[in-house]
């Protein structure tokens, strides 16, 4: 029997309005030393959410009618609820004061809980944890068949991960032009369109990323921006657009079609935000596949994403040895992949 319970009550408590805690039920899981917890609402018999019966918090039973609040509800979607533990949350409280204390806690942590998309600690690209897998010409096959299995494995919770609610999966197909800066050996990628909202439907929009080489042979992403003004009409050559924006002489390396499947993940152990990006690349030398696992942000400052990345990489290698069998650590893998592609260097399966 779990000594953890779920506290149910009025939605108003989340938004600093009066309300009450109306129900306390045993939680189907333990919540020990982890930053988050993802519950299936159907598992706790909740198939219909009412405003006065919302799962609000996880708590440990200290003694009869006394609880220690260990996590607050962050996001609820159709079948899932995501509990999360802000720093300095743990609070002991008697049953009669539960509503008052919960209202206070939600108010104290409202930015972290309600602005969860943007209240993040982004990790400097130069020190991000990255794992990469490359499969070169002749071995590359589409990721589409494998995606449902990967997502199922993540959803099962065996790797301590959850898919970020509302941002679980995105697919993007782009023609990407790769260019090398002649003044500092950096690499640029440029693609028409982007994920930023345009001022008008026919306004030109390009996405540009810049990378710089590191002394250890890796790469760091130094800029990722959308370009939208009179310098970048849709029919302008990509090299011309890029040269004018970065004001540097460029060498055009070539163009590749990039089909990207991105799974947005959150570690339940550390609350680190990770992404697993599975790319299918059609270039002049054939089709290759590239998979990148990257820890890019966290909800707590000073979160170390290394353990998360290692655990997920091991899990992937165990579950899908054909595709994730061997991997290497790099800050940014795409620039090296692109450079090698266009200079005709044969990749050996692992970067």
């Amino acid at each position, binding site marked *: 029997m779990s000594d953890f319970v779920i506290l149910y009550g009025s939605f108003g408590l989340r938004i600093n309005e009066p309300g009450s805690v109306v129900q306390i039920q045993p939680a189907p899981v333990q919540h020990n030393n982890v930053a988050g917890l993802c519950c299936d609402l159907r598992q706790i018999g909740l198939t219909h959410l009412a405003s006065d019966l919302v799962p609000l918090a996880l708590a440990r039973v200290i003694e009869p009618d006394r609880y220690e609040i260990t996590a607050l509800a962050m996001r609820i979607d159709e079948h899932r609820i995501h509990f999360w533990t802000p720093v300095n949350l743990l609070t002991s409280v008697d049953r009669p004061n539960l509503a008052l204390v919960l209202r206070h806690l939600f108010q104290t942590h409202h930015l972290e809980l309600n602005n969860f998309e943007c209240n993040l600690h982004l990790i400097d690209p130069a020190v991000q944890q990255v794992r990469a897998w490359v499969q070169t010409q002749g071995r590359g096959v589409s990721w589409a068949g494998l995606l449902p299995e990967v997502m199922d494995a993540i959803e099962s919770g065996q790797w301590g991960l959850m898919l970020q609610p509302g941002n679980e999966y995105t697919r993007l197909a782009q023609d990407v032009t790769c260019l090398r800066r*002649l*003044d500092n050996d950096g690499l640029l990628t440029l693609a028409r369109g982007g994920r930023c909202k345009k001022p008008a439907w026919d306004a030109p929009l390009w996405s540009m990323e810049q990378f710089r080489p590191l002394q250890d042979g890796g790469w760091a992403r130094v800029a990722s921006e959308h370009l939208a003004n009179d310098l970048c009409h849709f029919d302008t*050559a990509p090299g*011309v657009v890029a*040269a*004018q924006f970065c004001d540097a*002489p460029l*060498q*055009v390396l070539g163009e590749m079609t990039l089909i990207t499947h991105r799974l947005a993940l959150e570690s339940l152990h550390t609350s680190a935000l990770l992404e697993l990006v599975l790319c299918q690349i059609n270039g002049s030398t054939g089709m290759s596949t590239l998979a990148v696992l990257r820890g890019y942000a966290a909800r707590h400052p000073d979160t170390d994403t290394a353990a998360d990345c290692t655990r997920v990489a091991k899990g992937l290698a165990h579950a899908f040895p054909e595709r994730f069998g061997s991997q290497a650590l790099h800050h940014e893998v795409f620039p090296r992949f692109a450079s090698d592609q266009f200079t005709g260097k044969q990749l050996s399966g692992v970067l």
Partner: protein
Amino acid sequence: MIYAAPSTDRVQIRLSFVAPSGSGKSSAVNCLAERLQAIGLTVAVLKLADPLYRLQSIYYDVVGQHLDVDSQDQILMETIATQLRRIDPEVLANDFQRRLTACAADVVLNDDLRDDQIDAVRLRALGFKVVRVATSESVRLARLNSRNDPSIVTDSPLDRQVSRIPADFVIPNSAPGLEALDRQIAALSRHIIASNQPLGAIR
């Protein structure tokens, strides 16, 4: 360093600068030529439009007016080019190739490639790498209007052809003055000198 000791079987560097009129192709070529000459390389600038300049000069002689050697009566030159191509589409490319074959310079630069269908294909086959000069439209028009050419064409169909020529290198040239351009050319020049590839051309 393939250029340290020129010999009979050395590789000739061949670069063609492309951009709409007024973008600064000639300035870029002059900058690059100076830099390459400063390190002991011989540089030749070959123009595809050389026959057009000769014919333009004859027109002005007939009319009895003086025209500077490098000035362009752009309307007249485009008309001459159109009529020459009607007779033989490859006339300019053939004339260019004859002069190129006779050229012994270490570096051959070209700054007037505009036709993407015939001339660009020929130059590519002859081992030329294409450098595009990128200039914002407002700066380009201002430069064009400040020139002393007898006539200018601001919206030539040839400019649209130019935009279709795939480039190997791009240098920006929207900043005022030659200092910024010289900085861009310096980086391009270093790359040319440092790399055997991809600038290997045929000899």
